[in-house]
């Protein structure tokens, strides 16, 4: 079946695809190693900062934001499923959350970021790519809360990139940049570009790509150099690309035959 909208959507300025580079948690190496690489190539990244990590390097993050990098919300306490037994506690695990507490804490994290860096986050990244609170028959998705308070929500560990015509801006797919070579990243990038899609990469640290949860600094440099030579690829922050899609694509109510 053809997606009728694919004929109408256009990337701005004749570009063929979009890419956003993002990192989670406000790890020290993201601002110390990652941001300088992006700056050298004139590329803006998106950083989903945890308030408690960000406040340790406030000056560096403030300077990054002033140069145009996006600072997004990554929750207050990084709540994930309780199955992470060595890490999540009864207080932080999503099974013990309510929608009300989640909303309160998302707004508080945004307030802290705004008060310390001077930018109010417009995008959010789900910790551990998990999108629920509670359990079983009383489990609820908190994606509607993210849709209410942010322009864009970014998910993770996805098997594919975002289709501009079909994606839900409240839960965009993203693919890991950690522990990958430039060649591996390039393969995913080429597929996304050939389909006219939006590739969002997610990482944590930036440095030695053999270390757990680390985007290879070398691969990142090669990727940035590649972008500089390929103006047909729009590289920008998640909110900027998301805003363009949000202003262009309208989603009609679900047809009655699908209900």
């Amino acid at each position: 079946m053809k997606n009728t909208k694919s004929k109408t959507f256009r990337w701005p300025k004749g570009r063929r695809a979009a890419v956003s580079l993002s990192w989670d948690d406000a790890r020290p190496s993201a601002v110390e190693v990652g941001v300088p690489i992006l700056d050298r190539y004139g590329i803006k990244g998106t950083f989903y900062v945890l308030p408690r990590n960000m406040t340790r390097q406030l000056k560096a993050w403030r300077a990054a934001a002033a140069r145009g990098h996006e600072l997004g919300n990554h929750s207050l306490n990084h709540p994930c499923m309780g199955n992470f037994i060595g890490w999540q506690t009864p207080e932080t695990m999503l099974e013990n959350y309510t929608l009300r507490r989640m909303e309160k804490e998302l707004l508080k994290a945004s307030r802290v970021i705004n008060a310390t860096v001077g930018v109010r986050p417009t995008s959010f990244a789900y910790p551990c790519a998990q999108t629920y609170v509670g359990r079983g028959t009383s489990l609820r998705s908190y994606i509607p809360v993210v849709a209410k308070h942010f322009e864009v929500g970014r998910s993770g560990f996805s098997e594919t990139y975002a289709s501009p015509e079909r994606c839900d801006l409240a839960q965009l797919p993203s693919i890991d940049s950690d522990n990958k070579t430039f060649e591996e990243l390039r393969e995913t990038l080429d597929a996304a570009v050939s389909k006219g899609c939006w590739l969002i990469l997610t990482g944590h640290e930036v440095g030695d790509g053999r270390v757990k949860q680390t985007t290879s600094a070398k691969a990142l440099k090669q990727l940035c150099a590649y972008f500089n030579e390929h103006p047909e690829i729009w590289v920008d922050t998640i909110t900027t690309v998301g805003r363009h899609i949000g202003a262009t694509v309208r989603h009609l109510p679900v047809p009655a035959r699908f209900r």
Partner: protein
Amino acid sequence: MRVPASNTFRWPNGRRAAVSLTWDDARPSQVDVGIPILDRFGFKGTFYLLPRNMKRQVAKWRAAAARGHEIGNHTLRHPCTGNFIGWQTPGTMLENYTLARMERELLEANRILGAAVGVRPTSFAYCCGQNFVGRGRRLRSYVPLIAKHFVVGQAGYSETYASPERCDLAQVPSIKFDNKTFEELRLTLDAAVTDGCWLILFGHEVGSARGRQTTSAGALRKLCENLKSRPEIWVDTVSAVGRHIGAAVRHPPARTRLR
């Protein structure tokens, strides 16, 4: 912080951990290659069948069910996010689903599988590991539907295994089986045993490890040999292990201060 329940939960018959081996979609190589390997070692697997694929090998699936392998539900049409543009259509993408349609189709798949193989499924595997219908502010999780109709719901692409005390049986995590060596699987297995947890592996085809979405037949054989030599590990179907946890663990409502 300690998990108070970890002192009270015990695996049956003095076992230290549990393992379930699962495959999705009813791919032909599962009955042709995978099940004969499991049978040789006397292990029961869990197979989440798509009705349209199952119908091509009904006799073999019925025989597998009769030998004790579990037949689970994997929906009627394998709906996933519309971002899979080359594969999902407006008629199958989750963004166009409603909870009512999802419930109807889950029950229809149960009826078809029950009639064809003689067992009504009690477990379910989320397609693409995704558990939502709709988009944005109107998006809803369908985990509560699974909690209502099944003993166990299995999520995928997880970063960790299930803690018996903390897991939500309506969305237990599972880890990729496909394209891994025995040594890689062994690392995950040993970590799960150390933590006293329930490791669920999920795969698609069974055969040459270089094939896409394929559990290596060689790695599966070595894993079965390893499990056979370690009687402290309980190897059983997802529903059998899930039932034991469901009967042993109670989840009181979250405390007021966490709401």
